[in-house]
Each structure stands twice: as structure tokens, then as C-alpha cells.
């Protein structure tokens, strides 16, 4: 088993020098030791000869072609790897990379780290799921969550006063989480809902898709958000819930939830408030797609996300993680990716935002709010104070 003070060694093979350097920095900040980055197979093989890493992050197409030989050598040495590639995801079923986690390039560095964390844990606890959930604490998550309040508790406390028992109950229903890779369906339209999903880390979304494959995203689920309190009343899901970034997700059984609503009135009040806020948010998003210009839509969304991340203690005064692609933003705002790109550039030019490496910084919040006609009333963040 990997000892805590010995950093896990990761081989990084990445054809793009800038992405390679950024990722290498991020991995080292997350306490990994990086071999590379190597931008070609020959260099990666040379590094591999010198030292066998625990894990690897591979861009399949390197400067000197597809890194088939590198994959073979890693497999021979039992080194698990993550594919970080701009190639289409349907190629993941192709032969030598089959079964490896796949992240679309450029992935947000925390996604890459989350997948590596997961791989390193599965390496150190070969006895699989049960052992992992009961015996082996999720090392990095425990570290990062230390002292940080549970996002569900934190969110409901904005709406209502919780007792120590209420908090303990919420902690216990959200304790058993599982890791879900980015772009994974949690439940699909037409499925029988088997419980309520609670997002504890990362971002998921509700969406519907057309026969052509085009999506409309109807909601973002941030940490502490759960989908459909009363979904167990339905026979079949009328929309799909999918992770956008890597997520930690808990599934709450319908009986557990009905018990909560029955025996813990403060929790029930908080959850019902949160459903009202979800509906109010959907109304704002409908205003966005129906009545606001491209710049107004994006400005409004960015203001909303700032307050939502702040409410769960995961944003600074003006900056937060935006683990979405431009295509995700396009699917959310009913714009083309071309218009999203133009709009982001225009907001940058006006000195309103900066967007780097999946981190959004709002440089002029009053102006951005004015542009999107953003009023925070629908998020009901101050309700407890007012009550």
C-alpha cells in the first residue's frame, strides 16, 4: 500500500507542451510526483525504463504517432493509466485503451486528479468496493473535506435552522458516496427512478436530448443539490441526469427520504425550500433562453453560479471552478458553440471576466450583474436570516 508521505509517481505523456506543463503543475500541487511530461513515445519509453510509475496519464496521439508501444509496456508492468485525449470518445472501445478511464482533452485538472485518486485507491485496496467504502478512507477527500461542512447541511442551513440531530442524519445519508467519471449518466430518461441522487462533489446536470443527439441542459446540480425529492412517485424518468465533471454522488433510497420528511420537520422544510429554489432557477433559465441576448444569458448564468458556489463555501469573493466545456455552456444557454465562444471573448474584452484552466474570475461583478439584469431573489439565499 502506498504510504502517505511517499508521493505517487505518475508518468505524463502529452503531445501539447502547454497542456503538459499545466497538468504537471496541477498534479504536483496535488502531491503526485510527475515523470515527464513527454511529448513523444520514445521519450516516454525512456522515462519508463528509468523508473516504473504507479499510474500514467496518456494522450493517445503523441508527436511521433499513436503510443501503442507505450500502452503495451504500461500494461506489461501493471501500470494503470488514464486516457486524456482530444480523440472522439467512441474510440475508447478500440483495443488497447479498452477499460481505461477516458477524459476529453483539455480536461479540468481536478477531473484528472480525481480519476488518478480513484485509480491509486483501487491499486492500494485490491479487495474492491466493500473494502474501499468501509476500511479505506478516501485519502484525498478526507483531507480536503476536513473541517469543511457537508454541502447538503450547509445548503439546507441557508433555508432553515437544523438541530444537531438533523445535521447528523444528513451527514449519515450523504456519507456513502461513490466516484463517477465525467459525462456518465446517473439515470436516463425512461428508467425507473431507483432513488434520489445527491451530488457531494463536482457538477452534474439534468438534460433532455433530441433524436439528432442535440441536448438541452435544464439544470446544474452542484454539491449539496439533489435531484427530485419526490421522484419515487414517478414510474419513469422524464429526463436524464449526467455528470459534467467527475463527481462524488450518494444515492438515497426512497424509504430513507420519506423517513426524513416524516420525522425531521426542519430537514423537510429545507428540502422543500430547495425544491422551490430549483423551480425558480428553472424559470430564470427559461427567461435566459427566451428573453435574453447571448451576452445577457452568459452574464446571468455566471452571476448565478458565483452565488451558488459561494453558498456552499466553494467560491472566493469573485472566482470559482467552471468545469464545463463551451459545448456544455452552449447546451445550457441555447446558443451555438460559435456564439458561446464569441460571447466569452466579448466579456473578456470588456474586462468583465477571466477564464483560465476551468477557473472563472469575475473582474467586475456590478457590471456583469447589470448586463445580465441579475437579481439574486430567486435563489432565496437570505431567507433564514429574514425569517
Amino acid at each position: 500500500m502506498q504510504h502517505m508521505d511517499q508521493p505517487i509517481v505518475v508518468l505524463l505523456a502529452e503531445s501539447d507542451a502547454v497542456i503538459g506543463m499545466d497538468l504537471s503543475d496541477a498534479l504536483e500541487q496535488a502531491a503526485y510526483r510527475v515523470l515527464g511530461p513527454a511529448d513523444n513515445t520514445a521519450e516516454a519509453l525512456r522515462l519508463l525504463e528509468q523508473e516504473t510509475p504507479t499510474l500514467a496519464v496518456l494522450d493517445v496521439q503523441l508527436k511521433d504517432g499513436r503510443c501503442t508501444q507505450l500502452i503495451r509496456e504500461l500494461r506489461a508492468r501493471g501500470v494503470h493509466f488514464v486516457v486524456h485525449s482530444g480523440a472522439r470518445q467512441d474510440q475508447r472501445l478500440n483495443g488497447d485503451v479498452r477499460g481505461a478511464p477516458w477524459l476529453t482533452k483539455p480536461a479540468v485538472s481536478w477531473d484528472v486528479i480525481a480519476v488518478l485518486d480513484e485509480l491509486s485507491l483501487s491499486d492500494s485496496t485490491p479487495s474492491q468496493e466493500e473494502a474501499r467504502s468501509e476500511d479505506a478512507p478516501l485519502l484525498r477527500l478526507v483531507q480536503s473535506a476536513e473541517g469543511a461542512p457537508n454541502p447538503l447541511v450547509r445548503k439546507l442551513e441557508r433555508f432553515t435552522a437544523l438541530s444537531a440531530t438533523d445535521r447528523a442524519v444528513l451527514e449519515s445519508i450523504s456519507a456513502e458516496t461513490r466516484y463517477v467519471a465525467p459525462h456518465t449518466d446517473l439515470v436516463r430518461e425512461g428508467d425507473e427512478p431507483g432513488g434520489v441522487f445527491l451530488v457531494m462533489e463536482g457538477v452534474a446536470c439534468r438534460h433532455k436530448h433530441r433524436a439528432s443527439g442535440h441536448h438541452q441542459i435544464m439544470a446544474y446540480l452542484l454539491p449539496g443539490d439533489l435531484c427530485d425529492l419526490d421522484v419515487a412517485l414517478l414510474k419513469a424518468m422524464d429526463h436524464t441526469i449526467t455528470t459534467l465533471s467527475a463527481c462524488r454522488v450518494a444515492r438515497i433510497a426512497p424509504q430513507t427520504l420519506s423517513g426524513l420528511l416524516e420525522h425531521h420537520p426542519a430537514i423537510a422544510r429545507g428540502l422543500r425550500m430547495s425544491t422551490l429554489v430549483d423551480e425558480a432557477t428553472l424559470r430564470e433559465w427559461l427567461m435566459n433562453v427566451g428573453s435574453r441576448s447571448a451576452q445577457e444569458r452568459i452574464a446571468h448564468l455566471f452571476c448565478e453560479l458565483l452565488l451558488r458556489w459561494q453558498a456552499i463555501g466553494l467560491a472566493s469573493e469573485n472566482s470559482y471552478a467552471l468545469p464545463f466545456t463551451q459545448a456544455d455552456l452552449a447546451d445550457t444557454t441555447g446558443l451555438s458553440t460559435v456564439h458561446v465562444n464569441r460571447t466569452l471573448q466579448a466579456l473578456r474584452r470588456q474586462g468583465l471576466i477571466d477564464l483560465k484552466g476551468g477557473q472563472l474570475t469575475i473582474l467586475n461583478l456590478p457590471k456583469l450583474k447589470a448586463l445580465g439584469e441579475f437579481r439574486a431573489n430567486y435563489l432565496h439565499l437570505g431567507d433564514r436570516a429574514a425569517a
Partner: protein
Amino acid sequence: MNFHLQPVQVATGSADAESYLVFTDGFLVAVLVRLSDQHEEASGQWFLEAGFGRVDNPHPPIFVDLDQAQSWIADQL
């Protein structure tokens, strides 16, 4: 189908300006805009900035060249 392309500059509020008005049989059916360097891998390709009638599309496509754009437009008509 008789295509006629007329070069114009479109004020898209971005660096994408070089454009064509696309006429078929004398009717304006589409506006194609060439994507600037701002669009990374899509730069140099042609975006359906506007489509009229049957060429209108909620998910406007991007074409690698003008031939592909015209053949797509012809398919819609």
C-alpha cells in the same frame, strides 16, 4: 439548383467578418461566416450564421468549406 454567393462583411461583434450571402434561384437562403482564429480548431471553417425558411436550424452547423455548405443547404431545400 442555382447557387450564387455574394461576398459581404457581417458585423458579428467578433473577429468573424468575412462572409457570403447565399442565394438560390435569386432568393437569399443563408448567410455563411468564415470563423476567425478566435475559434481554434474550427478557424477557417464556415458557420451558418443565419438560415432562412427551410435552411433555418436551431443547431447551426459548421462546414469545412463552401462546397460542403452548399451541398448541405441544397439538402435542406
